[in-house]
C-alpha cells in the first residue's frame, strides 16, 4: 500500500524521514543504554548550565554524569575563561569537588591527601611532596574536557577529539539563535524531577503538540489548536544536522482563564524584549538531551530549558529551568509567577505520562511507535539516534 504524502505537509517537505513505524527498542533496552554512553554521551556536545551560574573567577559547577560515566567540573579561571575538566584528582582518582557548585579562592584541594589545583586545572601543591618519586607535576594537572560557550550556554564534549566544533555541531540552530540576547534574562524558576522513564521516552513525549488537547484538556486545551478547533497544527518544522525546531501559534479567539487575563494585564511593560523566535512558541530539540523553548511574552519573551540526564534505562533526572527578563515591578513578578505555575502544572501532567509510557513500552506488548505527520520531529530524532548508534 503506497502512502500518499501529498497532503501531509511535513512528509512532503522531509520525505527522507519516512512515514512507517519506528522501533521502540532503544527506549527500553539496557544494551542501547550502554551503547548510548559510548556513541552519544561521550561524543556529542552536552549543555551543562549557563555562564551566569559561574559569574566570578574561582566559581565552579560540578556534575556527576552517569550517562557519560564521568564527573565533570566547569570552572571560571582567574583569567575569566570558562574551562571544563574531569573532576578527578591526579593522585589516585578521587573525585576532586564533591559539591554541585561553589567558589574557590584560586585553589581547589582534594579531600583525600590535599593535592591542590589552580583555576586553570594545574597541579600547584602536593602534600609531603619530597616523599614521592620524581613526580611529573607539570603533567598532573586536571584532565581537560573540551568546553565551549554559545550565547551563554556552556557545552562540554567528552570526546578527546570532537568531530565538530560547538558552532559546527549546533549548525542551523546557532544561525537562528545567534545574538539572541539570552544573557538579558535571568533564572526565575527551576525544578528537578526524578522520573522513572527512559530519557528518550521523556523527550519524545515533550517533542510534539499533538497531545495538548487531550493530555492538557484541563490546563491548556486550546493552545496551538489550529485545525477545526480540535487538533494542533504546527506553523513550521525545521530539521538541522542533528537538531530540530517546531514552531506554533494559537488561535486568535483563544480564551484563557480569569487569572491568566490578570497576569497578562500585569505583564504589560513600557519596553518590549524579544527573543529570536520563529513563531509565538518554538521548541528546539538540541541533540541529544536538551530542549530549548522560546515563548512570546506579553511585552517580554521568556524561555525554558530542559536537560534530560539518564541514570538508568528507566530513570532520568529532568532538569527544568525558566528564564525571564528581571521583573521591574511587583505586577510583572506576579505575572511571571502565574506563567511559571501554569508551566509547572502542565509539566506535571506530562511527567506522569512519561512514567506510564515507559511501563507500557517496557512490557514489550508493543514493539513499534506510530507517528503522524505533526510528529515528524520525533521521527527525525530517532533517525539521528540511529546515525549516532551506527558511527564507528
Amino acid at each position, binding site marked *: 500500500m503506497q502512502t500518499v504524502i501529498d497532503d501531509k505537509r511535513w512528509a512532503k517537505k522531509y520525505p527522507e524521514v519516512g512515514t512507517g513505524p519506528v522501533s521502540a527498542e532503544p527506549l527500553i533496552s539496557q544494551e542501547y543504554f550502554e551503547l548510548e554512553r559510548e556513541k552519544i554521551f561521550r561524543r556529542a556536545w552536552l549543555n551543562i548550565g549557563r555562564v551566569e551560574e559561574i559569574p566570578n573567577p574561582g566559581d565552579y559547577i560540578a556534575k556527576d554524569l552517569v550517562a557519560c560515566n564521568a564527573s565533570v567540573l566547569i570552572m571560571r579561571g582567574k583569567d575569566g575563561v570558562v574551562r571544563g575538566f574531569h573532576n578527578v584528582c591526579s593522585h589516585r582518582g578521587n573525585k576532586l569537588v564533591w559539591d554541585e557548585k561553589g567558589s574557590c579562592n584560586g585553589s581547589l584541594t582534594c579531600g583525600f591527601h590535599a593535592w591542590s589545583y589552580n583555576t586553570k586545572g594545574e597541579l600547584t601543591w602536593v602534600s609531603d611532596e619530597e616523599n614521592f618519586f620524581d613526580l611529573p607535576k607539570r603533567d598532573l594537572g586536571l584532565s581537560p574536557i573540551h568546553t565551549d560557550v554559545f550565547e551563554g550556554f556552556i557545552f562540554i564534549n567528552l570526546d578527546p577529539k570532537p568531530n565538530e566544533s560547538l558552532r559546527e555541531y549546533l549548525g542551523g540552530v546557532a544561525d537562528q539563535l545567534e545574538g539572541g540576547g539570552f544573557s538579558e534574562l535571568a533564572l526565575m*524558576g527551576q*525544578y528537578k*524531577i526524578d522520573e522513572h522513564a527512559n530519557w528518550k521516552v521523556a523527550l519524545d513525549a515533550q517533542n510534539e503538540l499533538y497531545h495538548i488537547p487531550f493530555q492538557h484538556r484541563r*490546563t491548556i486545551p486550546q493552545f496551538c489548536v489550529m485545525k477545526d478547533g480540535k487538533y494542533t497544527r504546527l506553523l513550521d518544522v525545521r530539521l538541522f544536522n542533528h537538531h530540530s525546531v517546531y514552531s506554533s501559534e494559537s488561535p486568535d479567539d483563544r480564551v484563557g482563564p480569569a487569572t491568566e487575563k*490578570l497576569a497578562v494585564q500585569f505583564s504589560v511593560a513600557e519596553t518590549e524584549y524579544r527573543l529570536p523566535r520563529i513563531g509565538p512558541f518554538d521548541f528546539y530539540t538540541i541533540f541529544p538531551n536538551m530542549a530549548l523553548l522560546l515563548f512570546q511574552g506579553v511585552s517580554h519573551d521568556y524561555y525554558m530549558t530542559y536537560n534530560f540526564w539518564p541514570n538508568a534505562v528507566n530513570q532520568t533526572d529532568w532538569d527544568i529551568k525558566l528564564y525571564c527578563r528581571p521583573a521591574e515591578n*511587583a505586577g510583572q513578578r*506576579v505575572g511571571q509567577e502565574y506563567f511559571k505555575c501554569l508551566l509547572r*502544572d502542565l509539566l506535571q501532567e506530562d511527567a*506522569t505520562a512519561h512514567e506510564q509510557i515507559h511501563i507500557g513500552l517496557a512490557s514489550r506488548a508493543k514493539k513499534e511507535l506510530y507517528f503522524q505527520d505533526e510528529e515528524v520531529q520525533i521521527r527525525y530524532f530517532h533517525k539521528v539516534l540511529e546515525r549516532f548508534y551506527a558511527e564507528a
Partner: protein
Amino acid sequence: MTAQKLPSAFDDLEPFVGWALAKEQERTSKRLASSMEDIQEFYDSMSPRLEAVMEYLNQLPLDNMPLDAEWLFHMSLSLMEVANAVEMFHNPAVINGFDVKRFVPVED
C-alpha cells in the same frame, strides 16, 4: 488580638495572611494541605482585589518593600499558586499530577 500585618487599605484580606509565604515550596505545600473550600475562599476574596494590590505594590521598589507590603506581595504569589486549582482542576492537586516529592523546586 494579633497585630495587623497588611497595609490598612487591605484590611479585608487580613484573614488570609496565612497565605503570605515567601517560598514556592511553602505555597505549594499549603495548597496541597488545604481543602478546596479554603482555597476557594482565599481565591474569591483576593482575586477581585488583585488589581488594587498591584497598583499599590507597583509604587514600591520590588527588592526593598516594607514588611506589610511584602506580606501582600507573597499573598499575591499564592493566588497565582492556587489559580489553577480553582480554574482548571477544581481540586487542590494537579489531576493525574506527578509525585510532588519527586518534582522539586530548586530555590535559593
